[in-house]
């Protein structure tokens, strides 16, 4: 219990720094701009059709590869200072030990990822309150947008996918997109944490390359199997027969495997990590 409390305190310490951290403020403002920019044409469509949208925008918000690239970028910005070492962290490390410190930082990455995507989910509704009607179903508007090219004609930044509307209920689509995105964010965070300990800035570069890979995978279906970022939305998971996309079991297995392997590597790497170097660079 005491061990858990220490780990949570270490993670909480990083969250408390958010108040004065411009990087986090900038990242969340960028996300707000992205959400607004992607969904602002919804008002024109609602005004034209006279039908309000359902609040289930989140599963479709970053389905296009370009949106995915942009929506994950602020998260990389938040994690870019991993392994989150500053002069204060040296004292924390001295009192807690390397292993607890590492688990605390990993917990911070998980917490940040959850908060980040919860923020996107919440504000995709809040910023469109005028054009939304609360309902349990997908609603007429999303079905029309999925079946026609209306979204494209109005310049809407996202397009509902018919397969998702057919195979998922709104709640399940929201849940799966949220969970996949969080896991994907955690993987990116762990990659940044791990490789930034090896080469300064190396992890951030590698995570950015993973985003670029997801954009490239949108063009070459064969690459989707190797691009965990692509699976954060449901349009890159096998739903229809012969769509050539990875099966759900494969996605879950790779996500679980990656999280476990990266976490183990983090624990191993932190044992020999030179903190003095990081503090000197601060």
């Amino acid at each position, binding site marked *: 219990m005491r061990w858990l409390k220490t780990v949570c305190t270490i993670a909480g310490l990083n969250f408390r720094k958010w108040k004065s951290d*411009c*990087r986090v403020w*900038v*990242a969340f*403002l*960028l996300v707000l*701009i*992205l959400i*607004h*920019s*992607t969904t602002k044409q919804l008002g024109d469509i609602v005004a034209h059709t006279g039908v309000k949208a359902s609040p289930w925008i989140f599963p479709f918000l970053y389905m296009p*590869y*370009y*949106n995915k*690239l*942009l929506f994950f970028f602020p998260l990389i*910005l938040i994690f870019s200072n991993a392994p989150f070492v500053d002069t204060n962290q040296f004292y924390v490390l001295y009192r807690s030990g390397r292993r607890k410190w590492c688990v605390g930082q990993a917990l911070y990455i998980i917490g940040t990822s959850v908060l980040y995507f919860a923020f996107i989910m919440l504000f995709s509704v809040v910023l469109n309150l005028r054009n939304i009607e609360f309902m349990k179903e997908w609603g007429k508007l999303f079905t029309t947008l999925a079946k026609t090219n209306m979204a494209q004609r109005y*310049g809407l*930044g996202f397009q509902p996918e018919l397969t998702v509307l057919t195979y998922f209920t709104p709640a399940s689509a929201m849940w799966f997109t949220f969970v996949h995105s969080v896991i994907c964010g955690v993987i990116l965070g762990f990659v940044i944490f791990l490789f930034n300990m090896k080469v300064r800035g190396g992890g951030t570069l590698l995570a950015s390359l993973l985003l*670029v890979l997801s*954009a490239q995978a949108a*063009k070459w279906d064969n690459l989707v199997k190797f691009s965990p970022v692509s699976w954060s939305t449901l349009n890159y998971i096998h739903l229809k027969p012969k769509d050539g996309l990875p099966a759900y079991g494969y996605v879950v297995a790779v996500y679980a495997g990656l999280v476990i392997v990266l976490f183990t590597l983090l624990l191993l790497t932190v044992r020999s990590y030179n903190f003095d170097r990081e503090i000197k660079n601060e």
Partner: protein
Amino acid sequence: MKGVFATSLRRAFASKLFAAAVAVTVAMCYISSRSFLQGSNNSVYIIDIMIHLGLFKKIIVFCAAIPYATVYCQDSNSGYEKSLIVRSSERKYIWTNVVVCALSGFAAVFVGMLAFFGIVSIWMPPAAYEAGGVYDSLAQNHPIEFVIMIVAVFAAYAAMWTVVGLALSSLLPDKYVALGSPVIFGYLLEELTSGLPPYLNLYSLSHSYGVFGNAFGNSLYTIGVFVLMAAAAGCVFSVFVKRRSRNEMA
């Protein structure tokens, strides 16, 4: 002025960050226009379509800020600013940074986008294009000049926001403020001016939409507005840097 200016130019243009900004611009051009590359055989069309993509604009503004917008935070946090001001003067230091910041932002976008245009032109040679509006005759008769003109306007837009980023970093010396504020304020001001007539509407101006009857006058007016806005941001930068160098601000 010459010494400080030459040093700042070297700092901006002979740096890895400038090369990175150009490379990222080229990469983002490719990623943004990829869906149009398959259905077209004219590179002029690709550039024109790409410039009108809303999200592309935001990334490019960010790319423009990479080479030099963070310079004041670096100077201020390391204390290098004081040495420079002692060796030259406050005024020289401030306006050199404003000019070099604008130049580096402009060059990163201009060079990056033209490099992409050059690469795409190998497979899709530039041809006459129906742009519509005031640029139609230019795009029909001189497609390459048309591309240079719209890219120059777009680069000037990005450069202007880069100076705004520099100005805001003097208020809050943080590199993330310097990099993120051009995108944030660019978007906010565009939304605020969206209801205004075309000659004051930043969205229309950034897309080189017709304000005047001819292409040249239109571009000149648009770039003029951006230069004025950059100068206003430069004045804000000047006020805060002076206050900081005199220890009037924490």
